[in-house]
């Protein structure tokens, strides 16, 4: 019996045959061509393009609002504040970027008379005058486009004009203009704009003269504008609203007047909050219809930096391309000792940037990113816990090194201690663990000894951390290493290294505190310590169990109060937590930016500040107030040491650890030196696209024999089915019917 449905179709269908043949040819051509798994267009092969990724879309690209590292990865390359950090030098050193030189403040007393730098407490105001280099130009942008008569093309648009506009690329004309001091002033004024929530407005209100009142002025003017023309057409041209403390001196000079002394202002001047904003851009994006099209400063930055954002599809990819108007900027010719040996001075004096284009792809998960890095489709990678064992091993000396697999690929490893700290804090307002009595101090100290952070780093951070001895991490002025730098209340110096005090010592402290055997000597009840925390994954459970075990060593019971993020934050704000885990990432490399975390008037519960432990010691506070306005001198160091000793004695934190960053990069990636402070590091990086192409081709040859094998298996497995089918078809109907039942 023949079955028509099983007969081959190609003999009678020439079109289908041709199509199949074409497909087959295409397949064969593909096999012989480059890697099949290349996620990038073939036209990009061999080009000077760096590939990176982002896991979630940046919320803000407006420099006045942006305040997170994933946003700075983009805007740091686009916006140029007046100052920057030297790419190579350590400790971190500020240098001019668009400024002619580092500004030095002039000091004034309350009567407005200039006084010397040694004016001390008499200093009522400091004035910083910043001179901008002439000739710096903005990236091409429609906001600057002008017609033949020199009139702006796109600053008086109506909704009708925007009918066919969906992105910036839909504006056919672009223009540029020179950077002037007015642009920097404009941006500082934006700190007080009623429609922008700048995270540092509150802080700057305390320092920049007149900023607080300026916010009220703008709020009033905004209301009037809205009443007059409606919200969608309202626009405040900030040039028309003077700000007392920030003034344009001349075309290339502006001044900032701050209350008292505030040397940290220089660090802020290296952050995007103080980058220039041309009024044309503000006007351009404020036009009716722009917001509905997602065309805003939050999405399309306008800067003078080495790169400009040419594609912003946060659902897919973001692309930075070389700014054709970028001013002359050169690779540094001086670094720290050892930089030359590592090849980090090979490009000294060369014009920046080196890379033409940077493509950031949306990559939500670590595993695909890691695998693509191994295939050569990403140039640099961190090391996630999923891939740690595959990438890193520890030598007998405990040093992190690459596994043979990584070395065989020519991958290199860079480690650096981050300018941040991860710690456990005691709520100093808590009646049990808080307070400043000797009993409470001893209890905190006993717990600090019991919680073995060396073990924590090894188990939960894959060794990527350095046990902390105090609040200031390495690389920041005030950090003291070695024997002199250990916390003598928690560590001993043994055989040339710090050693945590014994559990027996912790128990003794506990007895002295009035908790022998973990029981309160007054009530006889066991002492319960509550850890307030947020999180709930399997990894967190292991962490909680470990923490319970640590306190159990000194007979204390740890109760983990695990809540959702919002409730946890609420507890912290209200000062209801007892023991908590927290962290801080430096804004700038100054000890003030760490020691202020323990400054009384920064208490979280009372003052909504960043002092999460609500620590308040008048002696510490007085020293802090003195130290924060000082230059990095031996006198300042002496003050810092006294402050650190005070907090070590009081023990409001279990110091925790300074996280270590592990970076892997391929052999074609150069100038990889990590810089924790600088945001504009992309222009210093260099790649060798030819070597990358060669390695990619070598590592990604398609392997097709398993496919053929699979096909063969399918065919073979069909044979018994065909046999059964034939047998069934030949059976008498009655048997078939019975079987069916």
């Amino acid at each position, binding site marked *: *019996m023949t*079955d028509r*449905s099983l007969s081959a179709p190609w003999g009678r269908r020439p079109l289908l045959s041709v199509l199949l043949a074409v497909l087959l040819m295409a397949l064969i051509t593909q096999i012989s061509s480059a890697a*099949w*798994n*290349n*996620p990038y*267009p073939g036209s990009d092969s061999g080009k000077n393009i760096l590939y990176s990724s982002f896991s*979630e*879309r940046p*919320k*803000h690209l407006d420099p006045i609002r942006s*305040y*997170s590292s994933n946003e700075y990865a983009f805007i740091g390359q686009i916006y140029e504040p007046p100052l920057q950090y030297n790419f190579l030098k350590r400790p971190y050193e500020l240098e001019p970027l668009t400024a002619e030189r580092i500004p030095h403040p002039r000091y004034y007393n309350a009567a407005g008379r200039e006084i010397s730098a040694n004016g001390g407490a008499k200093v009522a105001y400091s004035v910083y005058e910043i001179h901008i280099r002439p000739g710096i130009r903005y990236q091409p942008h429609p906001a600057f486009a002008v017609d033949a008569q020199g009139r702006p093309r796109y600053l008086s648009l109506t909704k009708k004009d925007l009918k066919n506009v969906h992105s910036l690329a839909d504006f056919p004309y672009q223009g540029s203009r020179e950077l002037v001091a007015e642009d920097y002033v404009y941006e500082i004024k934006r700190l007080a704009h009623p*429609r922008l*929530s700048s*995270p*540092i*407005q*509150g*802080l700057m209100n305390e320092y920049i003269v007149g900023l607080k009142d300026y916010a009220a002025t703008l709020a009033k003017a905004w209301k009037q504008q809205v009443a007059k023309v409606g919200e969608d057409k309202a626009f405040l041209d900030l040039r028309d609203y003077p700000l007392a403390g920030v003034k344009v001196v001349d075309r290339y000079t502006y001044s900032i007047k701050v209350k008292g002394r505030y040397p940290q202002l220089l660090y802020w001047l290296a952050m995007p909050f103080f980058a220039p904003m041309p009024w044309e851009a503000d006007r351009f994006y404020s036009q009716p219809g722009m*917001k*509905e*099209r*997602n065309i805003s400063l939050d*999405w399309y930055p306008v800067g003078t930096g080495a790169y400009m954002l040419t594609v912003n*599809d946060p*659902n*897919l990819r973001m692309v930075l391309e070389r700014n054709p108007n970028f001013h002359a900027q050169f690779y540094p010719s001086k670094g720290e000792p050892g930089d030359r040996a590592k090849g980090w001075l090979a490009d000294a004096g060369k014009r920046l940037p080196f890379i033409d284009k940077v493509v950031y*792809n*949306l990559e*939500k*998960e670590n*595993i*695909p990113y890691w*695998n*693509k890095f*191994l*295939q050569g*489709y990403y140039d640099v990678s961190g090391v996630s816990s999923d891939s740690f064992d595959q990438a890193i091993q520890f030598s007998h000396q405990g040093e992190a090194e690459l596994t043979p697999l990584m070395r065989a690929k020519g991958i290199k490893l860079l480690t650096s201690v981050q300018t941040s700290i991860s710690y456990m804090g005691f709520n100093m307002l808590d009646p049990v663990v808080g307070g400043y009595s000797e009993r409470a101090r001893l209890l905190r100290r006993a717990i600090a000894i019991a919680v073995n952070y060396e073990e924590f780093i090894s188990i939960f951070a894959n060794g990527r951390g350095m046990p902390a001895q105090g609040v200031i991490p390495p690389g920041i002025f005030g950090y003291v290493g070695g024997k002199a730098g250990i916390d003598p209340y928690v560590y001993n110096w043994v055989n040339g290294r710090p050693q945590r005090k014994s559990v027996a010592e912790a128990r003794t402290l506990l007895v002295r505190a009035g908790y022998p055997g973990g029981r309160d000597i007054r009530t006889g009840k066991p002492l319960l310590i509550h850890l307030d925390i947020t999180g709930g994954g399997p990894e967190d459970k292991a962490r909680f169990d470990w923490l319970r075990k640590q306190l159990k060593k000194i007979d204390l019971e740890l109760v983990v109060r695990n809540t959702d*993020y*919002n409730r946890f*934050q609420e507890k912290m704000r209200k000062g209801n937590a007892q023991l908590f885990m927290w962290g801080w990432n430096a804004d700038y490399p100054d000890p003030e930016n760490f020691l202020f975390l323990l400054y009384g008037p920064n208490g979280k519960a009372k003052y*909504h500040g*960043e002092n999460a432990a609500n620590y308040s010691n008048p002696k510490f506070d007085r020293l802090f107030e003195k130290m924060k306005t000082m230059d990095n001198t031996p006198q300042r160091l002496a003050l810092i040491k006294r402050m650190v000793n005070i907090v070590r004695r009081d023990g409001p934190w279990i110091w925790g650890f300074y996280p270590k960053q592990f970076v892997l990069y391929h052999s074609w990636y150069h100038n990889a030196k990590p810089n924790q402070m600088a945001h504009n590091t992309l222009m210093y990086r260099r790649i060798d696209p030819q070597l990358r192409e060669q390695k990619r081709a070598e590592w990604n040859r*398609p*392997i*097709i024999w398993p496919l053929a094998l699979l096909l063969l298996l399918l065919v073979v497995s069909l044979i*018994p*089915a065909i046999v*059964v*089918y034939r047998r*069934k*078809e030949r059976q008498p*109907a009655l048997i*078939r*019917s019975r*079987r*069916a*039942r």
Partner: protein
Amino acid sequence: MLAYIVRRLLYAIPILIGVNLLTFSLFFLVNSPDDMARMHLGMKRVTPEAIVKWKQERGYDKPLMYNANISGLGAFTDTIFFEKSVSLFAFNFGSADDGRDIGFDISQRMWPSLAIAVPVFIVGILVNITFAMLLAFFRATYIDIWGVVLCVVLMSISALFYIIGGQFLIGKLLHLVPISGYDTGLSAVKFLILPVIIGIIGGIGAGSRWYRTIFLEEINRDYVRTARAKGLSELAVLFRHVLKNAMIPILTGAVVVIPALFMGSLLLESFFGIPGLGSYTIDAIRNQDFAIVRAMVFLGSVLYIFGLILTDISYTLVDPRIRLD
């Protein structure tokens, strides 16, 4: 039929109001507007003034559902619930908390979702039906037994395993397709092959078993015996008669999910870096972006209701005995 459809659409209005109310209540039960502001303003240096400003900018400074400061109807209309809900019924989704236009984002992100979901849906149904028919054809033989075992095995494996295993085997070891990523136009094809194959394989177990059960139920009916008695081959019986009559339960399951294909697949989109609506929703929940959450829940409800109406209509197409009155 038109009257039936209009009636169903009218029924949908209170359902949508209820869904919206439920979403609103659940969301604000665990997140206050202050929490939302803090989440958006970040961890560092957030002042109470900044929180107030953030809420004012986005209209979260009003009472949730009842404004005691205003009398009359205003007590209900000058609230977050009313202001954020009423525009939804005109399909005006407004702006996300980061200022992005939600309608625009949905219109952009539905295409990648559809690019995976449609082939997985169509090819998946074809593969499942074919496999189920094969098992039904070889019922009570070793092929059937081992086929069912295979289905159970396939059903028991986590979707995550298919994804990571597929990426490892096809993308990493064999270098046949990119491990993850997406592109527009025809360039998207090479990125879609692997997620589509994984989506199909991941659905074979449950789908084939379900369809096999349906086919076996049909196979024992009298009209099948009559067809066999007529001398038709087993293949002809299965494809011409059994398949047609099994279409109603198949349609029940299949048509209802067609509109929901827009909503995307969370895991596939996340692991393959495909910018669809599934990951959009999850990101919004993670970021406490109420505007997106309510828009997506509302859209999901509308699509589901639309799917149910489509299912009813499809019954009339495959079974002439059914009338929608």
